[in-house]
């Protein structure tokens, strides 16, 4: 296998040129998918016979919860890549991704509690999933906070990478402990929406939503990375020709 893609990915110049081609279509596809998926889910999918229309928030809740975790995993991988290979793009990725992940976790929390109100009768339960998303949100806020607190960019990059890696190693343990704690304190009284298989008309739009959330986040993060590259590499001559070439 050739490793040249790996080295290319490490070069801000190559990435910048590549991303100019790819960010808009990926982002637009994501937005389109979200519109189609949610419209289908909200308007055309049948009602859940237990929960009625409330269940439809699943089309927002599930993708954002999945994304919140995937984003954190990607931060951990980027942190590892940076600490081991010193790849220049990795901290740029972390910087761009952390706030998006935090927003995803926040959306998952909000939609979860909105869903919880009619289903469980309260805005919040110390459910294992909700709690672990809450912890995830705090981990994201920690990464953002340390990046903002440290003025020295080299140090801030290293620190964020370290905390991402430590976080990803610990995340399974935290999740496991929260699940464990939850079963200890809350014997499963609320069994919700677990009909083992949803009909196709219900999960099809969900699948579309999940996939297009991924695309949407990918497009967004590439854009944010471009901005960060502009900020960091403003002395590089390739960037000047690039920017002048775009007529900015």
């Amino acid at each position, binding site marked *: 296998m050739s490793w040249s893609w790996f080295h290319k990915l490490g070069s801000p110049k190559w990435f910048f040129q590549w991303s100019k081609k790819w960010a808009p279509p990926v982002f637009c596809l994501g937005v389109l998918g979200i519109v189609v998926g949610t419209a289908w889910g909200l308007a055309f999918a049948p009602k859940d016979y237990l929960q009625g229309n409330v269940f439809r928030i699943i089309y927002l809740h599930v993708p954002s919860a999945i994304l919140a975790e995937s984003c954190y995993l990607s931060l951990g991988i980027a942190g590892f890549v940076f600490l081991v290979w010193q790849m220049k793009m990795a901290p740029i990725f972390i910087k761009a991704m952390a706030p998006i992940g935090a927003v995803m976790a926040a959306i998952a929390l909000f939609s979860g509690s909105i869903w919880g109100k009619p289903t469980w009768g309260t805005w919040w339960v110390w459910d294992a999933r909700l709690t672990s998303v809450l*912890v995830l949100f705090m981990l994201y806020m*920690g990464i953002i906070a340390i990046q903002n607190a440290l003025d020295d960019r080299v140090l801030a990059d290293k620190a964020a990478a370290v905390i991402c890696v430590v976080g990803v*190693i610990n995340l399974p343990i935290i999740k496991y402990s929260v699940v*464990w704690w939850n079963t200890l304190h809350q014997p499963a009284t609320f069994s919700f929406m677990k009909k083992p298989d949803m009909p196709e008309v219900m999960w099809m739009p969900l699948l579309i939503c999940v996939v297009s959330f991924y695309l949407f986040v990918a497009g967004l993060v590439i854009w944010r990375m471009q901005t960060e590259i502009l900020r960091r590499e403003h002395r590089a001559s390739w960037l000047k020709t690039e920017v002048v070439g775009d007529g900015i």
Partner: protein
Amino acid sequence: MTYFSYFKAECLVLFRRKQNLVNALLFFALVIVLFPLGVDPSKAFLAPAAGGIIWCAAALATVISLESMFKEDYADGSLEQLLVSGLSISWLVLLKVLVHWLGMIIPLLLLTPIFSEMLFLPDGVLGVLMTTLLLGTPGLFLIGSIGASLTVSLRQGALLMLLLILPFYFPIIIFSTSAIQAVASGLPYSGLLAIIGAISLLALVMSPLMTPICLKASVR
């Protein structure tokens, strides 16, 4: 400079700066006092909660006391000298954590019986509480050293360090309080103690890898 002279120097620093340790222990006591005062002083509330209260107080006191772990070394240039000494910085970090841990755990273990009496901890649970402290606090200190190294160059790092490090303390706290509750209700708990020990071991691997990275990046 040798590992042993460093160890002796660290012990001496801890001794000269004993007020820091006393402050951390006072903080520990104050957090504990908050619960009867702020929530409920009745035995019905305190007895089942005692283990958890002591653990939360211990975790908070650990973060507070570790925050300044590398600060003085950073300011007076001895951290720089450690980095260029040719000694393995990972071992130096472990030695430092060991000294701080010993300094904290001994008075903590002495205070715990007193506080558990005041919080009406059920009979027969004290032993397990002490064991979880003995097994879990190394993990708290090792993870805390990573946080301390991240915030070493900040003047006001305590709050940030709490934000960064406390989530990583959740598993240790959860399993420790669960073990205490398990023994109080007569369930087996040795598996939980094993998990706590395993988390501390994981921290023992992680801390010497991660702390030096942050220390090196901070001294510039």
